[in-house]
């Protein structure tokens, strides 16, 4: 009986992972499409990211003369980390077997691991843009990472667990309760999401060769399949962050393991939520202006302090 449950859970896990890997570029495409509409362009279509990936995979990879093995391994490490992150988060079902292997602190660790590797790879070729990008990425992350951890802490304290499935269960399956601390956490999380996914007030994913670029500066030397994997990992990261947001602040419609009947509903709920969140993100990006790079620490410092404040409010109000 136990074995059957475990097998079922593993099947759920695999389904979810494959679904996420397949859907992630679609989300990026949708955000891009919404942005295009908001800017009065017709847009490249929802499937553009898939076409780009396919094209990149077909190309011959160009490597700089002095690229070390670290540079070549990094896209795979990045992809592995992001896939792992997506496997931890309860996206369509709770109680995934893998989420016991890594809790929210480990999730922050996964993102940090990926970030350290991409920053190191950026410095590997030794171009001035590369090290500039690495420096800025680390600047963004050293404030965003503790902020994310504090957001997780707030919800962990409420649900008495650092495991995402338990957090989701607490929030979705118990009586409806309003948590003031989560108001702070959600604003902080939104700011972190924008910064960590290279979205507009901090960075612009749609363009490079800007002097204020961050993410693009790091991956300038990548081409072909390596670039494809990095792009795919970026889509996965955006997907992961959005689903973390759903899990923490809007966890309704996620199925329980073994409940096959709830699965279609869960997928529909997920798609609806992603559609709305993607459009919202595009709208936000259309409304905001890009910040000067000196203002970024201020923006993230604010996010960090808001997250701490949320934690503090939890301790003070007890909710």
């Amino acid at each position, binding site marked *: 009986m136990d074995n059957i449950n475990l097998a079922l859970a593993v099947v759920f896990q695999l389904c979810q992972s494959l679904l996420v890997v397949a859907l992630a570029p679609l989300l990026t495409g949708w955000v891009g499409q919404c942005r295009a509409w908001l800017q009065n362009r017709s847009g490249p279509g929802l499937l553009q990211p898939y076409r780009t990936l396919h094209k990149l995979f077909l190309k*011959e990879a160009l490597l700089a003369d002095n690229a070390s093995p670290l540079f070549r391994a990094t896209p795979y490490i990045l992809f592995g980390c992001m896939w792992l992150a997506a496997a931890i988060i309860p996206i369509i079902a709770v109680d995934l077997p893998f989420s*016991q292997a890594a809790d929210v602190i480990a999730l922050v660790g996964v993102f940090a691991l990926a970030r350290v590797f991409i920053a190191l790879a950026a410095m590997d070729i030794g171009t001035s843009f590369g090290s500039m990008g690495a420096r800025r990425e680390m600047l963004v*992350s050293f404030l965003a990472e503790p902020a994310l951890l504090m957001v997780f802490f707030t919800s962990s304290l409420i649900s008495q667990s650092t495991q995402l499935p338990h957090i989701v269960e607490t929030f979705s399956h118990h009586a409806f309760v309003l948590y003031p601390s989560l108001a702070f956490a959600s604003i902080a999380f939104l700011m972190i999401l924008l910064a960590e996914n290279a979205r507009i007030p901090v960075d612009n994913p749609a363009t490079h060769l800007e002097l204020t670029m961050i993410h693009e500066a790091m991956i300038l030397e990548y081409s072909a399949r390596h670039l494809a994997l990095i792009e795919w990992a970026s889509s996965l990261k955006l997907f992961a962050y959005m689903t973390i947001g759903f899990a923490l602040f809007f966890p309704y419609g996620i199925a329980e393991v073994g409940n096959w009947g709830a699965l279609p509903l869960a997928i529909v709920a997920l798609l609806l939520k992603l559609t709305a969140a993607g459009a919202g993100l595009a709208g936000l990006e259309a409304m905001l202006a890009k910040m000067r790079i000196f203002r970024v620490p201020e923006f993230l410092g604010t996010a960090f302090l808001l997250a701490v404040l949320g934690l503090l409010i939890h301790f003070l109000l007890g909710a």
Partner: protein
Amino acid sequence: MDEISILPIDVVGGVILLWIALGLFGLALYRHKSLICNVVFPFGAALSLLLAATGLWALGESADIAVLPLGLPDLPLHLRLDPLSAFFLILLGAASFGVSLYSAGYFKSMKGRVLGLLCLEYHLFLASMALVLLADDAYMFMVAWESMALSSYFLVTTDHKIPDIRRAGFLYLLIAHVGAISILLSFGVMQAGHGIAAYTFDAMRANSLSSFWSSLAFLLALFGFGAKAGVLPMHVWLPEAHPAAPSPVSALMSGVMLKTAIYGLIRITFDLLDVHLWWWGVLVLALGLLTAIFGVMFAAVQGDMKRLLAYSSIENIGLLLVGIGLVIIFHVYGKNALAALALTATLYHSINHAFFKSLLFIGTGSILHATGERNMGHLGGLIRRMPWVAATLLIGVLSIAGLPPFNGFISEWLLLQAFLLSPGLPNSHINMLIPVAAAVIALAAALAAYVMVKFYGIIFLGQYREPGLEHAHDAGGWERAGLVWLAAGCVALGLAPVYVVQKLDMVTKMLLGQGLGNSTSGWLFIAPVDIERASYSPVYFLLAVVGVMLVTAWVVHRYYHGRVRRVPAWDCGFPAQNGRMQDTAEGFGQPIRRLFEPFFKIEREVPSPFDAQPRYHGQTDDQIWFFLYLPIKQLTVRLSAWTSLIQHGRIHVYLLYTFVTLIVLLAFV
């Protein structure tokens, strides 16, 4: 039953004696350099391994006690090997095994006489650290503590011909002694005036002091051990002495010697004192937080690779203090399960730090030998010339940055879990401190990642910044062995947390009467409190990442292709790219310097745009040195000036002083 049973403490004693003998042997044989390098140091390393194994054996046993027929009248030397000592002996043995192996290769280039002396000092240093951990009376402890300080002082000043190194050594010796006096006074308070026999630790355990005297003893001990560990504001010697010492010595000092101070603090607080007050915990916690954030902030702006590591050691000592502070707070409020969790995190982090910091320091030693350069701004691209050092140091860097699945992550994970479980303390002030403290810890950990990306990226990646670097050579055989051992330790400690936590339970049971345990049966998952609350499995984690990487690589190569062409770097089409255009260490740390500007004392000379030969000069200094130490120094100088008023140089005047003193004493006493 005729055979004499050997106890762990006998083995440890034997190791200590053999170390001393090895040192003397090395001094006597200073003409035979290869003998010292290829026999003495490796043999010392083997003894280290034996020590670690013995420690592991002693961890499960009850405490062994030995009384040596030496020492003061009425106070023979007492030795004791209990789980706490055993744990720190494991740390000492395991870390020094790698460092000694490495030293066998590293010191090869030294002159014979210097090498002989160094061999003696090195092994005395190891022996005295082991004795500190074994001591069971104040006298023995202080003797071992002082010989540890002295031997390390001589090791720091190995290159004593350089004035800066002499100055660094003096500063170290001065602060070490101020600390030692404070520790001695602390023992004096705990002995409570019961005569010389009461200087044994057993007598101190039996004493129950009032809360005032306990607090006094605790504060003195905190100051004394803090001076040794580099706690703010007694940290100033650390970034001076560590870069001055030869790299293996820096590795031992940072990886192991700082931990003896942590050991001393734990020993006095939880073993010798029986009263605990909540504000001790808050004080230690606050000091730890300040130290951690201060250390990592300064590490981010350093240009010298060994100074960077020294500041990072300050940060890690801060984290350890935070752990100890939490233990005290939980212990005072009777939450011993949580105290056990925090203590486990602290001890785990101690051994982790011993491994990765020793690894990084000896790695910088290899770089120093290969390039003769300590300034990171003159390095770069070494991953292509020094693959062994680069690969092992990558593990060290990922570990110290607290990234899964390596060891640094686990201790941080445990520490954060301790914070997450803390609500429900009856004191509302502490309840408000806790989230702020957790935030500071998270910030320090994230900044550590920044620092380590800088460290690794500037040294190993990119293009060569100076022309000579193309001829850098990789580490030799012995050096590789040391590097690989320490790197393997980082991985093993990261992958087998359940085993380590089980071993640590022996220590927490001894000190707090409660172990952490593991609520799951398997060795794959660590779940400190409850599987429902938190669990982590580094093995699955690693397997998943590596598995996905391999599958992805296979799929990509199978369904598309694996063609690669080597071309010059693109860099947005800019052709005249050279090594000097990369970020220097200072450039990489610039955002941090800008953000935390008020905390630094910055001196900069920026060249004018029309300068034909522009020179840039920048220096970032410690404000505390100017606010705290210079006034103390000036005060000392002024006091000395006053004292010199009564100094005349004429013998009659001195005799007069003696005469007056005698009269006064006779009159009043």
